[in-house]
Structure formats: structure tokens, C-alpha cells
């Protein structure tokens, strides 16, 4: 292909689809859907689905304050670090086809680590903000990260093991298109990774690092204005990224269907699957209370890691 055309498509992919604009819009709609469904479950009306756009817009008009005792450069840099990482993850997920937007380095291990950079950004934000709430929040987030990372990696490796040890998401999606969803073949690993999802996304019962009634807002307590808006958008895109990752691993990724003669593009299938995972996360969030950090650690390294391990051993032995 001519070089300028390739560069142009890459820029469009990065900026618009599935890069910044698409992730931004869909991520914020996901938060809106989550809040609306949660509100109806609580027998009330709740905000309209487009409310997160208004929230982010309002935050961009507010004053940007840096506490005088904070580590200035780190405090200001942390949101953009996280945002950049999560956009990179979106560019490496299969969103509109089995092949991701930038497939050169799109590898399972790379994505697992990139998905932790937003968490790292929040931790850095917490310690650099000179507030004791931030410090406590970061301490809890470090423990929680160690807690859920173990079963997450075990479950992901189980999928890779089943798909003949291919580590690229494209290969895993292709394997599922040939052999059916891995959800049915590896149910325990799927259950493990669905239990890890609230932990990764800081949703009840695992919203311990940002426990509102205990430590105000945890690591992000001192943030305001545009930087808080960037963190907010980053957290919402993370929902889309984690749901997309689980879709690619267990639900067959984006597949195009033909129903009654109508061609349905793969992106619609992708959105339906990710919204289904979102609704599951919302249900879990609505019916549980917040756990304590050592109870979360015990849960993840106990029950969840064990079921993931059982499935891994099963795949490797049989």
C-alpha cells in the first residue's frame, strides 16, 4: 500500500476508531448504562445514559488545583500515563474483526501488563498527592493488585494453553471460531476471570482502594478538574478494555453474523458481548457490600486462584 495511505489509516485508527474517540464515547456510555441499570435495580430512576458526558464536560471547566506538598510533576503526569496505556490496550484488542488495529505487538502477555499500567498510574497518583487518604488508598491498591493478578494470569494462560499455546489474541479468536466459545470448554477459568473483573475495575465488593466512606476517594482524593476528568475517562475505558479482553478470550471475540439474510458487522457482536459482561459486573456491584482488603486477598488467592488452577492443570494434563 502507498505509505501515505497507510499512515493515514493508522492515524484514523489511533484517533477515531478504535482509538481515542470510539473508546471515549463507548466507555462513557458503558458507565451510563451501568448507573442506569443499577438505579433501576434499586427501585429508582437514576441518571440518563448520557450523564457521564455531562460529568466529564463539567469537570473540564473546573479549576485545576495541585496541593502544595504534592510531588508536582508526578501528580500532573499520572493521569496521562494511565490514559495513554489504556488507549494502547484498546488498539491491541480485536474490536471490529479477529485482527486488532495494531497487531504487530498485540500479544497476551503485553496486554496483561499494559492493563496494569492504569492501576500503576492511580497508585502513583495516590502517593504523590501528600494526603493520608491517598497513601492508605495506594497501600490497599498494591495489595489488591497482587491479589487479583495471580488468578488473572492463571486464567489467561489456561486459554493460551487450550488454544495450542498461541499467545496472540488473533490466534485465540481464530481458534474459537473453529472450535466454539472457550466459555463452554473452560468454565472454571471463565468463572475465575469474571470474578477478577470487579477487582480490576474497582467495583464493589472490591472497590476497597477507593472506599468512599472510609478514605474519601482513596488515591484520587486530591484530584480536581481536568486531571480528574482524565482519570474518570481512563477508568471507563478500562471497563471496555477488560470486557473486550474477556470477550476475546472466552466469548469468541467479534464475529460477523448473517441473520435472515442481513449482514451484521462484527463490531455489533462485540458490543453486545461486552455489554453483557458489563451487566454482570453491575449485578455483582449492586448486591454486595465492600470487603476488607485482607478478605479480598484471601478470596483471590484462595477460591479464585484454586478454580483457575484446577482448569489449567486439566488443560495441560488432558
Amino acid at each position, binding site marked *: 500500500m502507498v505509505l501515505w495511505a497507510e499512515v493515514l489509516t493508522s492515524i484514523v485508527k489511533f484517533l477515531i476508531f478504535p482509538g481515542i474517540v470510539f473508546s471515549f464515547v463507548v466507555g462513557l456510555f458503558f458507565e451510563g448504562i451501568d448507573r442506569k441499570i443499577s438505579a433501576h*435495580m*434499586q*427501585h*429508582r430512576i437514576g441518571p440518563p445514559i448520557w450523564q457521564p458526558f455531562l460529568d466529564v464536560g463539567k469537570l473540564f471547566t473546573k479549576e485545576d488545583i495541585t496541593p502544595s506538598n504534592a510531588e508536582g510533576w508526578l501528580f500532573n503526569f499520572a493521569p496521562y500515563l494511565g490514559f495513554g496505556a489504556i488507549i494502547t490496550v484498546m488498539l491491541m484488542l480485536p474490536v471490529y474483526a479477529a485482527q486488532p488495529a495494531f497487531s504487530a505487538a498485540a500479544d497476551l502477555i503485553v496486554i496483561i501488563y499494559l492493563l496494569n499500567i492504569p492501576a500503576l498510574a492511580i497508585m502513583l497518583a495516590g502517593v504523590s498527592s501528600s494526603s*493520608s487518604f491517598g497513601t492508605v488508598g495506594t497501600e490497599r491498591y498494591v495489595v489488591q493488585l497482587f491479589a487479583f493478578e495471580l488468578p488473572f494470569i492463571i486464567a489467561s494462560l489456561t486459554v493460551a494453553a487450550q488454544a495450542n499455546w498461541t499467545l496472540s489474541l488473533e490466534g485465540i479468536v481464530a481458534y474459537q471460531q473453529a472450535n466454539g466459545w472457550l466459555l463452554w470448554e473452560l468454565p472454571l477459568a471463565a468463572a475465575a476471570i469474571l470474578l477478577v473483573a470487579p477487582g480490576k475495575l474497582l467495583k*464493589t465488593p472490591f472497590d*476497597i482502594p477507593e472506599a468512599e466512606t*472510609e478514605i474519601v476517594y482513596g488515591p484520587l482524593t486530591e484530584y480536581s478538574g481536568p486531571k480528574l476528568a482524565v482519570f474518570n475517562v481512563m477508568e471507563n475505558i478500562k471497563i471496555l478494555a477488560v470486557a473486550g479482553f474477556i470477550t476475546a478470550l472466552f466469548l469468541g471475540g467479534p464475529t460477523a453474523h448473517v441473520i435472515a439474510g442481513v449482514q451484521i458487522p462484527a463490531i455489533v457482536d462485540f458490543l453486545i458481548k461486552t455489554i453483557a459482561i458489563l451487566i454482570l459486573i453491575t449485578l455483582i456491584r449492586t448486591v454486595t*457490600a*465492600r470487603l476488607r482488603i485482607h478478605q479480598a486477598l484471601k478470596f483471590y488467592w484462595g477460591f479464585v486462584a484454586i478454580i483457575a488452577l484446577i482448569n489449567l492443570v486439566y488443560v495441560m494434563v488432558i
Partner: protein
Amino acid sequence: MSFVVPVGPQHPALEEPEHFRFTVEGEEIVDVDFRLGYMHRGIEKAFEEKSFPRALYLAERICGICSGIHSIACVEAVEELAGVEAPRRARFLRTVLAELERVHSHLLWAGIAAHEIGFMTLFHLTWRDREHVLDVLEMLTGNRVNYAANKIGGVRFDVEPKHLGKISNVLDDLEEDALRYMDVFTSDRTITARCEGEGVLSKGEALRLATVGPTARASGVDEDMRRDDPFAAYGEIDVDVKTAEGGDVLANAEVRLSEILESINILRNAVEQLPEGPLSVDAPKKIPEGQATNRVEAPRGELLYHFKSDGGEKPSRGKVRTPTMANIPAIIEKLKGETIAEIPIVVASIDPCFCCTERVQIVDKNTGKTQTLTKKELREMREE
């Protein structure tokens, strides 16, 4: 590495402003220091400026949640001073008011406790059911809080036959809901993980610290002013006092939720046995000289009103001792050895109502400066 976590005066965990300073190492609390005084409004002084009927309205506004019981306590103290006895029907109606308020207050507590442990759904659902109680109160008295229901010599509202249908429906629904919440609170795994064994107050400590109300009953102390020092119509109605063992947050929840069920029974009895008769008798404007103390069982514990009159139209001294004031040392005892995650739920487990509590202030006669006492200073003064 220890550092200080300040909680309050503005904090999502607190419903009213108070200030706690926790010195923590990691997650474990090593030391607690607290200071109150943010809600001090000078009400006891204001009592001296107002005639007795107006002081009644002021007493009602000390607290929003328990405003009815403050009004009952105040008016009975004044009636004792004036030598006036409210008619039997009025006393039964006051019982109805007190019990309805107990139900709504305990449902509010259940919601707040759920909110403190991050369980927003239970918060919304309990407050939704509380709306029905407030509707009944509005139907009977004309307002959801600050009922303006009492006057010296009787009451100003009535339960009419046309109200009975709605009251009965609401009580039936509430009984179902209270049983459901009792089931959820005692058996849901995430709630028991957060509440069981947290904030333990042993029976010995509860007695030593003179804890009152459901907080004491959750530690096994069998004390209830409705049975032990009857006010309103409680002398004629049986009250089954609920206690629990353990003194932790879960025991507090059990006691309060079973008290809702007991209140529903008392309400049914009171409404059924409502005697005929006048709603009020006349009371003198000038209250004879003397002092009177009245103790009632507010939703949070024993509430004490003391009035002193010198024969005029205004009280010469009014004193209020609210249950949360008696329970504050219990918070300190409960928080020893806990972690940061327990702070909101343990503080909430005594059902604090800090706007009721603020009464202590010292004025230094020489310099005219006011000073609020810190806990350390109070303890030092006590030991002197």
C-alpha cells in the same frame, strides 16, 4: 510508619460533623483522639429566653430524626412541674408517636449502616420502606419531621377511624420488610464478613461506661426506659425488651431490627386499645416553682430532660442529656485494635446523632474565652 488519618468534620462516612484523628500504622489504629462541638447551638441557654410552650418547639428541633421523642420528654417534664396530667387518650397517642418514630429511626439506621459498608442497594431499599412510615406520620400529624404534636396538657393530633386502614396496611408491609432485612443482615455473606466480630463491646465495659439504648442491649445489658421507668402509656402496655450477645455490629443490627418488629406489635396494641376521651387539658401559664426530671427511651437510648422553674413563665434552667452523649466513650472502647476499614461502621453502630449531643462548653470567666474540651482534658479533669 505511622501517620494520622483525619475523619471529619466533613467526611462521607459521617452524617453530622465531628472530628476524629486516628493514628494508624498500615491499616491498624493505634490511637484515637476526637473533639466535638461543631453542632453546638446554645439551645440550653435559649430555653431560658422562651416561655414554656415556645421552649417545647425549640426542644423538638434539637434533632430531626428523634424530634418526636424530644417533644414528648420535654412536655412530660413540664407537665410534672405544672402538676398537670395529660388525659389517657393523649398518653396513648404519644405512645403511638414514639413507636412510629422508633421504627423510622431504626430503618434509617439500617440504611446508614449499609451505606457505611458500601452496600448502596440496601441503603436505598430501607429508606424506600421508611417512606411509608413518614407518610403515616404526615397523615396523622401534618408533617414528616418536627411533628408539633404535643402541647402542655395533651396532644394536638388524633388517630381517626379513617386512618386505621392505612396504618394497618403500612404495619403489615413493614413487618414483612423488617423480617426480610433481618434475614439479609444476619445471613448475607458480604455483610457478615464486615460486621461480625467488629467493634466488640463486652457487657462489663458497657456497664462500666454507662452505655444506654440498643448499644447496651446488644452487649447483653437488659435495660429499657419503656419498661423500667414508664412514660406516656407504657405503664399499661407490655414491652418485650430485646437483647443480644456479643456487642458487635451484627448484634446491634439484630437488636435494632427486632425492635422494629416489637414496635409494630406495640403499635397494633396501642391503636386497638385507644381509649376514648379528651385530647388535652388546660395548663397554667405560670408554672409553679420546682424541678422535674424525665427519662424516656429515645430510639438511641435513654434521653433525659431536666427543667427548673422559679414560678414564672420561662424555665430558669433546662438541661438535656441525650443518649449519644452517654455512648461516646463506648466508641473509643470499640475502636481499640480495629483497622481503618472499621471506622465508619463501628462509629455508625452506636447510631450516633451528634446534633443531639453538643452541650459541653466551658467559658473561662477571667478571659471570657470559650474552649471546647478534648477527651484528654475531660479525663484529666475527672481524675483531679
